[in-house]
């Protein structure tokens, strides 16, 4: 739709017209603020923990576990050099045999949510599915943060 709008404006004599083709979806997925009636509804991008530890596929579990526990976490997100989410380790996986590689012990391809999803919409889903945490990513898979069920339930209950 926006390409047609851009061309139409040019035909009306506007000399400098630009098309943000990725559009509102891209903006919302990046967790950026908006205006409008939905602006006051909390979105998960705002409460996802941005300080979640990350690791790479080829790291040794014992090294990652030490780092994650020192930071006070029980979860770590596996990302590549582009910060694209490849896997997730929660407490169960972190408790595995320390000599193994992350690639061998992670939960591959975890379910992810987009930052523009509403907190209230996800509260029941996470509780019903016993989902203690889930990565939040942009539409191209890049990590925004880790969403914790306890945070979602707390904010939804306000």
């Amino acid at each position, binding site marked *: 739709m926006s390409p047609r709008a851009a061309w139409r404006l*040019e035909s009306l004599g506007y000399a400098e017209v630009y098309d943000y083709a990725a559009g509102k979806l891209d903006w919302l997925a990046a967790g950026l603020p908006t205006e409008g009636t939905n602006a006051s509804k909390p979105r998960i991008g705002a409460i996802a923990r941005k300080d979640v530890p990350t690791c790479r596929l080829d790291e040794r579990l014992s090294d990652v576990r030490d780092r994650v526990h020192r930071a006070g976490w029980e979860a770590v997100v596996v990302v590549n050099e582009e910060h694209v989410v490849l896997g997730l380790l929660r407490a169960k996986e972190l408790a595995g045999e320390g000599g193994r590689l992350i690639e061998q012990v992670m939960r591959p391809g975890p379910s992810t949510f987009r930052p523009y999803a509403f907190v209230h919409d996800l509260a029941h889903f996470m509780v019903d599915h016993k989902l203690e945490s889930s990565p939040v990513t942009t539409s191209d898979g890049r990590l925004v943060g880790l969403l914790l069920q306890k945070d979602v339930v707390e904010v939804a209950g306000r």
Partner: protein
Amino acid sequence: MPTDIDRDALQRMVANGAQLVEVLPADEYAEDHLPGAINIPLSHIDAGVAGALDRNRPVIVYCWDVA
């Protein structure tokens, strides 16, 4: 020929005075729009928009996504 821009370029251009236009229907604009955007639905873009937009400043249009 209109030029495609990404999110970073949009933010820079808006900070420098570009005009931002959401071309989706009014109800979608009312729910969510980018900060500072005005709404001119695609079907309403005609000679009459001249009053809403400054011809001497860049205009950035957007809708939901590339679809």
